[in-house]
């Protein structure tokens, strides 16, 4: 296993599109690093530059202590799981699993032994002689995992490996990946656009936007102390509420220079009786979600103000069109400079 470092990496595609500008990402040895961000932000590009499938236009890529920027993928000793799985359709599962070992010139008996050893825990021993076309989606996904695991690569790269699975299988496989990471102590760089997946899996999370790193940190820190409006809005579900400008006065608080944005997570707001409340709002829609309610409100007694979402306990259910008060724990408020979007401490 080894660490991975992107050092001021830049990627401009031949069509002029800038997919990475000055990326600095450090992945420690044995760490599960998740790259997360909205579609098109350059996550796959970053991953593919680590793999050697794209060449950075500037900057360096290091695996361990070695500068691999100029090395082709086959010389980087990495394993990658693609979103489409990219299983070789003309080879059996066994041959798919053996391919990487064969390319590296392992001896035949050693290959056979290793393939068996990997296939068993993944539940693939029964399908070893089938072609990928005859497998279910979940089995294919496991073959792709297995193909990455047969060699002991320095780094595992995953590009949205769960996005082709149904919801149930996705949750199961997510747990399995976490166990896998614990067992192998492998260095993993994992790309997803799903913030929930990022929070549950990562030792650390890198949030990206338009080819730039917005924030790096352990999942709970990114959730609790988002570094920017963008991160705050992207991480957490339902998404954070943002209030602008004049609301500063309502909550009192420290006077800020210039315009500010206040972020409050729906979980951090409490519904109270309307009298004496900091903030009054009218109930617009109530969505029961089983263990909790998602209440959409509009600020002001007339219900004409900005929309705001609150997660409330299932009892009591506030009637639609009733006027309620809102209370927020001041420790849980997030302040951002509206012009820069950065967090204000």
């Amino acid at each position, binding site marked *: 296993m080894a660490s991975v470092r992107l050092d001021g990496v830049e990627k401009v595609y031949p069509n002029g599109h800038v997919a990475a500008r000055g990326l600095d990402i450090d992945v420690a040895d044995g760490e599960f690093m998740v790259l997360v961000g909205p579609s098109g932000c350059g996550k796959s590009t970053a991953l593919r530059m680590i793999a050697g499938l794209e*060449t950075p236009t500037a900057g*360096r890529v290091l695996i361990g202590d070695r*500068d691999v*920027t*100029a090395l*082709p993928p086959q010389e980087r000793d990495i394993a990658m799981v693609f979103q489409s799985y990219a299983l070789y359709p003309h080879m059996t599962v066994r041959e798919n699993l053996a391919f990487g070992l064969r390319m590296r010139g392992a001896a035949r008996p050693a290959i056979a032994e290793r393939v068996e050893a990997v296939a068993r825990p993944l539940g693939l021993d029964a399908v070893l002689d089938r072609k990928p076309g005859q497998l279910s989606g979940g089995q294919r996904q496991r073959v792709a995992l297995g193909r990455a695991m047969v060699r002991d690569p320095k780094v595992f790269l995953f590009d949205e490996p769960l996005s082709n699975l149904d919801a149930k299988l996705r949750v199961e496989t997510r747990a399995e990946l976490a166990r896998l990471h614990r067992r192998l102590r492998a260095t993993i760089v994992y790309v997803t656009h799903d913030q929930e997946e990022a929070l549950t899996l990562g030792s650390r999370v890198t949030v990206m936007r338009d080819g730039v790193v917005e924030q790096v940190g352990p999942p709970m820190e990114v959730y609790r102390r988002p570094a920017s409006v963008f991160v705050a809005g992207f991480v957490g579900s339902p998404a954070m509420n943002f209030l602008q400008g004049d609301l500063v006065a309502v909550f009192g608080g420290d006077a800020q220079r210039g315009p500010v944005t206040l972020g409050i997570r729906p979980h951090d707001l409490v519904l109270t009786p309307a009298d004496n409340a900091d903030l009054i709002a009218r109930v617009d829609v109530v969505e029961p979600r089983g263990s909790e309610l998602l209440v959409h409100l509009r600020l002001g007694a007339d219900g004409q103000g900005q929309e705001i979402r609150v997660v409330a306990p299932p009892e009591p259910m506030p009637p639609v069109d009733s006027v309620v008060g809102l209370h927020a724990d001041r420790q849980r408020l997030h302040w951002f400079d509206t012009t820069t979007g950065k967090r204000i401490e």
Partner: protein
Amino acid sequence: MPGGERRRAASAEAREARLAWCLAAPAIATILLVALFPLGWTVWESMHLHDLRMPWLGRSFIGADNYVEAVRDARFRQALGHTLLFTVATVTIELGLGCTLALAMNRAFRGRALVRAAVLVPWAIPTVVSALLWRFIFEGRAGIANALMVDVGLVREAPVWFIRSGLVWIPVVLADVWKTTPFVALLLLAGLQNIDASLYEAARIDGASAWRQFRHVTLPLLRPAILVALIFRTLDAFRVFDLVYVMTGGGPGTSTEPIALYTFNTLLQNLRFGYGSALSVIVFAVVFGLALGYIRFLGAGLTETRG
């Protein structure tokens, strides 16, 4: 150190580029050797007086004289006219008929395999064979076409197709239409099948009549396919040689002689290589001009349908 790395980083891409050129080189060299180099030679040759029957005259440079001669050559102008006539006639019929067939076939649920067979066999057989086949069908009084026409009562007296300079075009055009219409239909059918069926449903819900559906949904979306078929057919028709050579030999007289056949005769019968090369260059220029014009047209059509 960073300088060295930069050089190495560049070399990863350079390696791929080098491999690409290695893989492409033999084919590119072949194309340069057998197509581009001869084309240049044709141009060079076209500016010389070069007559293989009179080798003692040598090969003297005469500038544009061959082109001047071509412009004054009545037979050349006629040949150009024949080619245009043939091109316009066949392309119009083939596109019209092909489009109709494709629209009708798009509605059929069965018979795909049969359609493929019916399309592919005429397309795959040698043009020489289809020319002979249609000559046989229209040949003399005993040809099946004449027999059927007399039987049905279309004509009282069977016409002699290959003697009269007006009639002779009918079997020639028919042979070409027979061989290529199915192919045009196939191209357009592929285009039709790319159109999302829900568009028609939406149009129908909006109350569009069948004609309006065709006009506002089918035609705009089919336009790229139509243009591709148009390019292929026009360029092919303009180069027509085999069909006429075998079916009529350009006759009666020179009344069906297309430009490619006149050029061929000038070169390999009269052995006038200088003049023949000038004619070749003219054919090339016309075909290339057509292709370029179409590609611009097609490019515009493509971006329009996308945007």
